[in-house]
């Protein structure tokens, strides 16, 4: 079996990936939050780390055009275009060996885009009653130098 990830490493896995996107694609007005997401419909372990972040769509660009530009920038950095084999999410997807990112429009706001960064299902902590599935804002960690 694959080695489990501690809470800290599961969080770092997706936060670092999200930071890389912010820097590489030069995203502006970034905000975001982190939560542990169960990898099954029962809400039971294992969990993955997940960052939900959003950003301003570049002025004068169609949102989808901007999203494609982000994906292209990540592929130039060695990421793989599209979702991992066997996955078919809606939205524009890119991935690495450890994270899948789905990019699309933010809720009800065409001036903002969103990116969901999902990590590996290797965190075995039972988060059902520790409040860590609710989510916490981590904007500073995404944008800090």
């Amino acid at each position, binding site marked *: 079996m694959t080695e489990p990830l501690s809470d800290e490493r599961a969080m770092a896995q997706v936060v670092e990936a999200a930071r890389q996107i912010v820097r590489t694609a030069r995203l502006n007005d*970034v905000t975001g939050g982190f*939560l542990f997401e169960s990898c099954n419909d029962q809400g039971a372990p294992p969990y993955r780390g997940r960052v*939900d972040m959003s950003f301003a769509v570049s002025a004068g660009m169609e949102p989808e055009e901007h999203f494609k530009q982000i994906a292209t920038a990540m592929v130039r950095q060695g990421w793989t275009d599209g979702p991992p084999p066997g996955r078919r999410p809606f939205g524009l*997807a890119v991935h690495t060996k450890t994270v899948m990112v789905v990019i699309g429009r933010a809720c*009800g706001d065409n001036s903002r885009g969103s990116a969901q960064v999902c990590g590996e299902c290797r965190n075995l902590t039972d988060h059902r009653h520790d409040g860590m599935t*609710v989510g916490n804002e981590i904007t500073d960690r995404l944008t800090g130098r």
Partner: protein
Amino acid sequence: MQPEPPPGANADEVNAWWNSLMRDERDRLIAEHPPVLGNLNGIPAELRDQINTAVMNDDLTRADDAARYRNAVQVKQGLDHDRGSDPGNQRPVLLWAYDPLAFNGKGSAAIAIGDPDHAQDIAVIVPGAGSSVASGWLAGGHNDAINVYDQSMAAYPGDDLSVIAWMGYDTPDGFDDPRVASPLMARQGGVRLAQDVNGLWVTHDGSPPHVTVLGHSYGSSTVADAFAASGATANDVVSLGSPGTDLAHSAKDFHLDSGTVYVGSASSDPISWLGEGGGVSNELNEILGYPFGRYAGLGTDPAGDGFGSVRFKAEVPGGDGLSFRDHSHYFDLGGEALRSMAHIVTGHGAALAQDDLLAQGRRQPHITTPSEVKIPGLGPIHLPHIDTRIPGVPAYIDPEAERPREVERD
């Protein structure tokens, strides 16, 4: 002024009573927020949210009442969870129902992402055994409602959608609860579900919405009973990992008019094989250690090709052989089941075919005879060709099991 509508009033009568009140009377009731008001079908969703949120906030100050306080915390976390922790991209959430002491303290609540009264499409998600407010279903991190909402919006940007996480019935406590083998709680829950679903039509503003009711596991039996026995009205139904549809023996029993019963059942999900009550399900039940009691199955398997349903692809990546894990991956981001649901709840069920998401139903074995035999010296002799199902045998041949898996499982 009547402070409350007559006892037992239906959603239409509640709505008529509410509309008969003067503006200041309504405002006073909202300010006083009597708990019963926030759970009445026929009251507009936005006002139910205001009332229920005020009641919940009161309960969050009542640490002396342990069950009430605990469930208020769970519901508050559920609202925060569904709203999301990204301040730049918040989902619009409403507390559509809130009764923290219902079901002997397990609690009852419903959270809507998107206002159902103004949505063009409404999806109601009904969970299965082991789910309750107290057990943390609303905020537990499985993200059913969030993923359906986000993926539907990604598939059809601009769609006006409301997804309701409906924790409105008393479920069996888990697979080790003997009540999971009985349809009783599904039938009781079906009554409540039908009332709530039908109430959505009464308060909806503008042209009629497209309503889909989705049930997972024991919740799919509850959904079936709501339609077959309690008069629920919706456009489409989605049945996920169903152990059986109890009082609905075929899709016709859902009375959907021109709507469709859609079914997602992974070939490797053992619970979805328990339906039909035939020899296979009982043998499987024994092998699995009787998860649904000694008498397996809660009715007919809706994934069978004779049910009249439309089956969509719902395999678990990497799945190989029956596994309890595969009962719980229908809402996975990137999974074909979630992708199918995004089409269905937005009223684009016809797109399943174009998107290569249709699956063949499970089928019964057939007896087939050759149409001719060749006897040396006599040449071919034609015979009457027989190709028929074996009577009394359940549909246990699953074409989906033959599909190659592409990746390692999670």
